């Protein structure tokens, strides 16, 4: 597998997981099923997260009742008079009153997007700190990395790897384990439990992968 192909695969996986965390209408499920097959063909099995990935894609391809799945989505991620059981917003997990609370966190995230030259469209998610947007950001960085590999711009590859590593560690990678823990604690159905496990396995692996790759590119 060539490095640009690896970057494209990672881009696809981030986009895939970002979409899987949006409300599960029939069209989205159909697209996710098709995308899962494409990503499989791109070589997911070469990586350690493949087994968790496969457990999720098995759940995805055998969804029997999309309406029940939608209900589970609402129960886990949206409903609740008080707290949402499993919020998909970073501020729900990481806003610290001592350092300015939610407002300060959101401002820092917005600055981060601007530094990366990105402007999030929050039309679907309702907030810039939604997990889908953070994963979409990683996908955008991976796309740039793939282009850099394809054009032989090694210095730019190194810069992009550093950006990916830093954004992943500072944002989605820092709170995805908490989402996964809550999905287990809330006894989520097979689909969302497997989704949480696969996302955790992938992002945990990607942090390590980026560290190894960044160090390698730096010494080559």
């Amino acid at each position, binding site marked *: 597998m*060539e490095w640009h192909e690896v970057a494209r695969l990672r881009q696809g996986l981030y986009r895939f997981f970002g979409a899987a965390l949006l409300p599960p209408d029939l069209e989205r499920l159909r697209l996710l099923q098709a995308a899962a097959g494409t990503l499989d063909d791109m070589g997911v099995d070469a990586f350690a997260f493949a087994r968790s990935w496969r457990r999720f894609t098995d759940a995805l391809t055998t969804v029997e009742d999309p309406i029940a799945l939608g209900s589970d989505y609402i129960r886990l991620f949206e409903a609740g008079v008080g707290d949402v059981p499993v919020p998909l917003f970073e501020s729900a997990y990481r806003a610290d009153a001592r350092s300015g609370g939610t407002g300060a966190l959101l401002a820092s995230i917005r600055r981060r997007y601007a530094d990366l030259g990105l402007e999030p469209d929050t039309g679907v998610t309702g907030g810039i700190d939604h997990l889908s947007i953070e994963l979409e950001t990683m996908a955008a960085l991976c796309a740039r990395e793939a282009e850099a590999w394809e054009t032989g711009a090694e210095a730019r590859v190194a810069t992009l790897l550093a950006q990916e590593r830093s954004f992943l560690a500072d944002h989605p990678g820092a709170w995805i384990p908490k989402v996964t823990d809550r999905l287990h604690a809330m006894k989520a159905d097979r689909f969302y439990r497997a989704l949480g496990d696969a996302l955790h396995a992938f992002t945990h692996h990607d942090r*390590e992968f980026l560290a190894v790759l960044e160090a390698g590119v730096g010494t080559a």
Partner: protein
Amino acid sequence: MSLPGSEELVGAPPVFAILCDDHDTPLPPKVEGARLFLAGGLCGAPVRIQELPLDGGDGVRLVLGLHPGEFELGAVQTALRRIGVDPLGVEIVDLPAASGSADRLTTLLAGAVARVRRFPGATPEETKLRIPGAFSRRALLRMEAPVYIGAPRIDPQACVAGTGCHVCVPACPAGALTFASGSIAYDKETCIACGICVTTCTTGAVRNPTAVPEGVADQIAAYVRTSQDPAVGVVYICRDGAIPPLPEGMYPVRVPCTGMLTVGWLLAPLTMGAGTVVALPCGTVGCGLGNEERLAGVVGDAATILGVVEAVAGRVGHRLVGPPSPPLPDLEMPEDAFGPAGEAAVVAALASSLAAPEAEIALGSARLGWVTIDEAVCTACTRCAQVCPTDALAHRDVDGTIEIDFDPMLCVACGTCVEVCPESGANELWRGLRWPDLVAGPQVLRRETTATCEVCGGPIAPSAMLDRIAAMLGDEHAATLKLISRRCLRCR
């Protein structure tokens, strides 16, 4: 003799043994505990595994017989994931290591099957990535299939860092562990997954899915049980080292790094019927982290202990010298021989079955210790017993007297008791072996009366502690001293 692994594991996943039947390696007609498949061209095309009917679901375990140099580990791991098998739970048997003998291969396969049956599964945190080959201009064009190895994980429920234990931190050759605020922080990026933390941990809280003590014990037991050789020996080999040609009767046991071996791991196979144990250092590769020196110290201590109990030190070494010695007579492997406090139990088993002389030998690397308490300094605060991770030191109140007991069978010489003692020099740890005290059972190291309250009769503090306070306060504070030494907190 009852060997571990000879019983059926309840609910154990199905095991399949798949052997590449290229070349002329004589293959066995069956494999103990596994269904056997033969597959031509398996080394060059590991994807052929997909063609086999491996029914058993997600928990299936595999043993692969492959020819070294003819397969890429990354490609094999990829093929395994494609069929839903965790590659970390798969044992690869080097077919040439069978040296042309079907009996030998049968034994190797039985050992591998026994080991994979104990694979506990691996979380993402317990899987460590390696991209083969250094990054070069050529490597920048193309990624070779990544290879994954097992990485350690600390069970926060079992870790006793909260009481001050942090023996794993200085033991880690890569500096991947740090101790702060009563907990151990682990840096996976720095970690080299050598396994030293696994065998250093005083409570078994550190786990590496590819170096499970029960799996190693079962593998050795299966070798002993299955082999047709007149004597069986064990050769510990590093995960990254090639298996050299082994003498007849010697069987390999892979560990993440032989630097992780303890005296207990070296001597335990002798209590299971193995006659010789060899631990090979990295050889030409070398980790550069001092693990070879560590291994040399452990092998030296094991040989010294054997020399004391048997007057034959040649049963343990770090080089291959020939076929194994005959097994030692009438030995039984103690429970948890490969566990944190297994070292003393293994040594005691050897000593009880052989002629153990009365001796006292100092050992630098063995996890055997003897704690002494200086009564003139100790205030009987019992802090040492409270933090002892293995309960080798324990305290109790017997009719108004505080007793601190010491059980050398449980001591792993971690030194935590010395480190936490508020009275500098009250506790001393001597590293080594004392016959026959090791097997004499718990001993009272310290006995101190408890002063009682003149009002309610309840306990105030150990008398020695009050004496220490009196010495510190001097005559100027006689009234204060009188109060605190005669009345308990509630009645003051």
